[in-house]
């Protein structure tokens, strides 16, 4: 019998992609469609004193302008409902949207953007998450800039230190990263005679977009349809709503299809990023190379809103001990508001940051002990039946086998003994 599983079958739609026939978000077009643009904050942290859209509205060719007052439910967020769709009394980062415009041409929409009058009262900004944790730091939301604190406790960390022959400490930092899908965010919204709102968008999670739209627009889910176009790269950047509510509101207001495509600059300034992390590791180890304790303190720069920051940090903390058997673990993760770009979902969800940190730290420990980095890893690697610091027992753990096969492909600096039993 022939099996389909395991076959090297090319993508089902590759023929459309290589002939230029795949329809991406940026390719959408409707007769009579309007083009939208979004006004972003000129300051990283400020009170909004005045917002006057009269001049923009009166520009010939402008079909509609929306501000916070036009949004039925202006708050969204996954774990924290902290983000306004359009700024109300305050702006918290340079990507905050203040108003959106639909016009008969992109050029008119761009021109109208410049005719919106905004008066700000600048507030002190805070851009360093460590400073933002200080009690007297300017506050971005409410009473504290610490949006969440995640804890993992496993074994007894003090006992771990007391049993260690050597303790190694490192501080590692990672930078802010953009998803940089080659296709920018792009979507088109249209409303039919029955009041059905249809959004065609280049997104990774249509059902999340639909439920968020339903809440924001206060329209039941059976009147909202999200259809995903060909997606020109996602990597987590097209995980959540970005532009869809604006174009839906503008389409509802004008009765015409509305399209919005972000410029590359907007992609960088106004969409989510990979969180920068500061990770302090402290590990205790026996002379023979057995890891006995590991502590991590993680500070994540959330940016102006939590978005997926808490779930990202949580995943990072869970994997903070790395792929190793360590009986005593203590991990603390802090998610901190700043006036920087918003950290969101991105491929690896916090683990690339931690992966860099624990693997460089692990090499440092091996060096201190004078043990080969591969041998040190083999000695401490997770195996079938090992536990993570969450207490979860793992079943299928071919970690050592991945080490063996990687070495087979490229070679290693010295011969190591491969344990036959522990797969």
């Amino acid at each position: 019998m022939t099996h389909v599983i395991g076959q090297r079958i090319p993508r089902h739609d590759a023929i459309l992609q290589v002939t230029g026939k795949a329809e991406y978000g940026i390719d959408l077009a409707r007769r009579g469609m309007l083009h939208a643009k979004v006004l972003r904050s000129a300051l990283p942290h400020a009170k909004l004193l005045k917002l006057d859209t009269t001049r923009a509205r009166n520009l010939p060719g402008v079909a509609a302008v929306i501000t916070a007052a036009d949004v039925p439910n202006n708050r969204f967020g996954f774990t924290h409902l902290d983000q306004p769709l359009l700024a109300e009394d305050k702006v918290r980062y340079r990507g905050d949207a203040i108003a959106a415009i639909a016009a008969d041409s992109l050029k008119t929409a761009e021109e109208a953007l410049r005719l919106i009058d905004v008066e700000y009262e600048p507030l002190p900004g805070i851009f360093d998450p460590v400073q933002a944790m200080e009690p007297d730091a300017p506050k971005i939301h409410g009473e504290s800039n610490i949006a969440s604190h995640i804890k993992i406790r496993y074994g007894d960390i003090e006992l771990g230190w007391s049993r260690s022959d050597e303790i190694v400490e490192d501080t590692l930092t990672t930078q802010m990263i953009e998803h940089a899908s080659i296709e920018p965010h792009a979507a088109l919204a249209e409303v039919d005679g029955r009041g059905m709102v249809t959004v065609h968008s280049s997104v990774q999670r249509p059902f999340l977009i639909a439920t968020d739209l339903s809440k924001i627009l206060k329209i039941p889910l059976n009147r909202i349809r999200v259809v995903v176009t060909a997606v020109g790269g996602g990597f987590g950047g097209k995980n959540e709503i970005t532009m869809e509510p604006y174009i839906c509101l503008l389409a509802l207001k004008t009765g015409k299809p509305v399209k919005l495509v972000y410029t590359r600059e907007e992609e960088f300034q106004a969409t989510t990023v990979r969180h920068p992390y500061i990770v302090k590791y402290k590990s205790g180890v026996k002379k023979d190379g057995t890891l006995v304790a590991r502590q991590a303190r993680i500070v994540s720069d959330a940016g102006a809103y939590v978005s997926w920051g808490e779930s990202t940090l949580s995943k990072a903390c869970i994997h903070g001990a790395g792929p190793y058997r360590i009986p005593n673990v203590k991990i603390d993760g802090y998610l901190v508001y700043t006036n920087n770009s918003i950290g969101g979902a991105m491929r690896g969800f916090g683990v690339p940051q931690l992966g860099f940190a624990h693997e460089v730290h692990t090499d440092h420990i091996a060096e201190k002990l004078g043990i080969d980095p591969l041998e040190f890893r083999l000695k401490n690697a997770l195996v079938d039946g090992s536990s993570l610091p969450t207490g979860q027992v793992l079943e299928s753990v071919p970690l050592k086998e991945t080490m063996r096969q990687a070495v087979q492909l490229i070679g290693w600096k010295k011969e190591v003994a491969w344990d036959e039993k522990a797969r």
Partner: protein
Amino acid sequence: MIERQIELRVNGQSFTILVKPQDLLVDVLRDQLGFTGTKKGCGTGECGACTILLDGKPVNSCLMPALRARNKDIITIEGLGTPEHLHPLQQAFIENAAVQCGFCAPGMLLSAKALLDANSHPTETEIRQAISGNLCRCTGYAKIVQAVKAAAQAMTQGDGNP
């Protein structure tokens, strides 16, 4: 600003159109003529998604006023091959999984075509050089390089119909 009537030759076909001086070739191709296979990823000539062939040479159509393309031969992805009659490069891109999200593919394919037109037996380095102006965020380029090699082989063996 006055619109001017110009003739553009795209994929062997002539089009008489009205353009403004500030109209970019990429927008004219996509919005006026419907060649939406030409993609737009940055607007600053850095990603290569808008690559077209101008008199056989790859250029970024986002950095070119449409007026400048008068009297030149333009090839877009739609002119490379169709689903019914694929170019060997397109065939090789499909078979070697050289496309993931596919957004860079049109520009990438045209850069590769210009290479193979000039050099039927490119080395791996020559292939990488030829596509180094086309960013891909999905594939790590490995399968793209493989596909170009495979197409070169197919074309020199005469299996192809370039």
